[in-house]
């Protein structure tokens, strides 16, 4: 019997993800057409090209570096969402855990003058602590993790604004440059910056996040812990039946999930690529984009590496849209549309499977009809 390649889960995920991307770009293009038809083609190309908008090679690599710098925290948020999702939990709190991680690392660097490694660990701890709160509420009081996660996002945001006001510039809402105030807290470059035309922001963060993606894949696939977590996520009752510690696993999952997102915050701000704006009034989209990256990556840690990069590529590319033709928010809008469509991966996989089933039914009918004809 010949195997239908479309039935392979990995192939399906890949096709679904690619379809989502194409669909997102198409709808983005249509929206641009409505706003201003003359520049639509150029604008969507600008988004796709991202750093290729520069003609000089060294500027291209330098800006490629910048996209990667922001991919690392996004990947961490995506891994955070993915890890919880495998256990049947939807960690929308990753956004807040990311913020609190950023807060912890910036504060430790500026107020206490810690060097980079303790700063990172402190961010991990802060994210984990926030995750633990969600976990305890979920497992002992059966509070939905989405509700408590969303509320903690806001608590985390305002806590961060409050705390970081003590380490901000006198005349602007931004925190001090860590590179000036405490260079020891800047993540080591490991010489990677040279590969990107001397981009000083490229650092340890990028290989570290990829390494962690591989580690998560191994944990989920090859370890007893992963076996338990996925069993709990697939069938809570069976997990209980065979004596897995369900409550402990839920808390542990959200702690790890929070730690990953918290680390993501530190991996961005300890490069000094951005400074925290203490008047931020909405939870940064990084955590939410992590959700899109998780699904676009086919719920696979390795796939998430690529989907995170793609989403960041589009987001960064949005900055190159011609602002004389479109208002400045258009770049966010276009990337948002594409990211939104990325969430449809599971739907498209479902459609593929339904299509295969229909096809097989038709075929079996035809075979049956042929057999019947043969008998007569």
């Amino acid at each position, binding site marked *: 019997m010949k195997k239908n390649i479309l039935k392979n889960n990995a192939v399906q995920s890949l096709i679904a993800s690619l379809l989502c991307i194409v669909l997102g770009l198409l709808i983005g293009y249509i929206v641009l057409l409505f706003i201003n038809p003359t520049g639509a083609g150029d604008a969507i190309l600008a988004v796709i090209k991202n750093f290729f908008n520069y003609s000089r090679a060294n500027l291209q690599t330098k800006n490629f570096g910048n996209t990667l710098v922001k991919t690392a925290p996004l990947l961490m948020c995506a891994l955070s969402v993915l890890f919880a999702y495998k256990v049947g939990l939807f960690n929308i709190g990753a956004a807040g855990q990311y913020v609190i991680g950023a807060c912890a690392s910036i504060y430790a660097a500026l107020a206490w003058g810690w060097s980079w490694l303790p700063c990172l660990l402190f961010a991990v701890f802060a994210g984990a602590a926030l995750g633990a709160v969600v976990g305890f509420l979920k497992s002992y009081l059966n509070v939905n993790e989405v509700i408590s996660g969303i509320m903690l996002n806001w608590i985390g945001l305002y806590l961060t604004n409050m705390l970081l006001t003590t380490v901000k510039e006198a005349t602007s809402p931004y925190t001090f440059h860590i590179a000036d105030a405490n260079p020891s807290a800047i993540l080591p470059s490991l010489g990677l910056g040279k590969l990107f035309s001397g981009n000083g922001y490229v650092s340890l963060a990028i290989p570290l996040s990829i390494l962690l993606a591989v580690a998560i894949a191994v944990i989920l696939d090859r370890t007893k812990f992963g076996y338990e977590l996925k*069993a709990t996520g697939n069938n809570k009752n069976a997990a209980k039946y065979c004596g897995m510690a369900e409550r402990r696993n839920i808390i542990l999952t959200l702690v790890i999930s929070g730690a990953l997102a918290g680390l993501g915050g530190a991996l961005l701000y300890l490069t000094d690529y951005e400074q925290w704006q203490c008047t931020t009034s909405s939870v940064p989209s990084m955590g939410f984009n992590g959700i899109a990256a998780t699904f676009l990556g086919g719920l696979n840690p390795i796939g998430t590496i690529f989907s995170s990069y793609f989403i960041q590529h589009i987001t960064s590319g949005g900055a190159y849209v011609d602002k004389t033709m479109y208002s400045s928010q258009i770049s966010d809008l276009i990337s948002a549309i594409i990211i939104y469509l990325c969430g449809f991966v599971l739907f498209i996989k479902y459609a593929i499977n339904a299509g295969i089933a229909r096809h097989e039914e038709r075929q079996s009918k035809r075979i049956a009809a042929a057999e019947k004809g043969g008998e007569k």
Partner: protein
Amino acid sequence: MRLESPYAIEMLHITKRFPGIIANDDITLQLKKGEIHALLGENGAGKSTLMSVLFGLYQAEEGTIKKDGKEVQIKDPNDANDLGIGMVHQHFKLVECFTVLDNIILGVEPTRKGFLQKKEAREKVLALSEKYGLQVNPDALIEDISVGMQQRTEILKMLYRDNEILIFDEPTAVLTPQEIEELMQIMKNLAAEGKSILFISHKLAEIMAVADRCTVLRKGKYIGTVNTKDVTMERLSAMMVGRNVNFHVEKKPSVPGDVILEVKDLSVASKVHKNDAVRNVSFKVRAGEIVCIAGIDGNGQTELVYGLTGLEPAKTGQIFMNGNDITHASIRTRSVDGMSHIPEDRHKHGLVLDYPLEYNMILQRYFEPEFTDKAGFLKRKPIREYSDRLIEQYDVRSGQGSITAARAMSGGNQQKAIIAREIDKNPDLLIAVQPTRGLDVGAIEFVHSQLVAQRDAGKAVLLVSLELDEVMDVPDRILVMYEGEIVGELDPKKTTQEELGLYMAGAKRDEVKA
């Protein structure tokens, strides 16, 4: 008059295929007006598929459906509804927090200018309930009423919609003998009033008692239609399974040894009622014997097992295994200390359906050094070898062996996998809850022989069963549970099904001492 067809509904030469299987192979079913027609067959005989075709959930590849002699097309359940076909499902489709009346009118609410006209509806419901002797309280909430009244609500739902063809899918499985008696009377009343009734069942005695005619299916094929007056139960049974089945289990007399499980005054709270589901139950199970908890579904057997296995906490009382108090021990501790549990619901508890078979085979043992190394990594090769051995030894059949997703396996083989896993754990105490539910005859024989083999190997076996044949044949002792209490202890060699029935119905009880 002569032109009018005598049949309310006819399904002629229906064939329905699924990839790899013919679920219905040239099946004909003709339901006369005003008759009670039984549809008999084992699980997997094609009864459900045939009904799904009638309801438009599936389209048959071949064959026609006629209503009153005219050919009709049924493309979806709405078409079936328009033709006056209604069904009481085995698992009721009622909104728990609605009243009886609200449930009956759900979907066909009488309204005027967008406002509900419940008064009219109430009058119609009361009139119907009077006419057919269906006692219900229209204002009671579903969650507060008995299963029997819930079923009457379902029947009223069909009558309220003026359905002429009423289908009852295994309606007696959840009822007490008295309620079954009442239901039989109701069905006869309905038929006398001109309704046509299709009665799906595999219980021969009920079919003999109530049905006029009976159509038998076996493995997707049409075996025949008989007048129940003209046949015996033995004949029907042989038609259903295709051979004369000896349900009797061959076994030597038991040699009971030490007490393995001792339960003292155990009570377990109920999730649905205010009363405890298990009330002050005490009993012992010894090594080398099979003890069966018999009873009608919903008399606390499920909760008793939950209490014994640790899925639910014990409210009061004590549980001892091998002399150790395990009342408050964790599920894992009980399992490691020698308790195996073949669960009632294999999809809910027994399997992780999206895991491959090999991962399901190690579900109770994955943490042991045999399958997990010191660093916490799964040992993939030993897992595969272990799974392959169980598959071989217990003849578990699946598409791709160890890597088959549990979801893709047949119910019988899923059950075999669970039994293999639980028995191979080499337990001191094996708790088997309805281990033959949904299995075909061959698989049932396999399960029973495994239980007896465990007994002969000196294990204590606690069997929970709803099937009378199983209760009479497999165990060495029977404990009957009624409304959360053990009301009788019987010796299967000395008792009769009739006596057992009296205990199960609560009509008879002894003071049972542990």
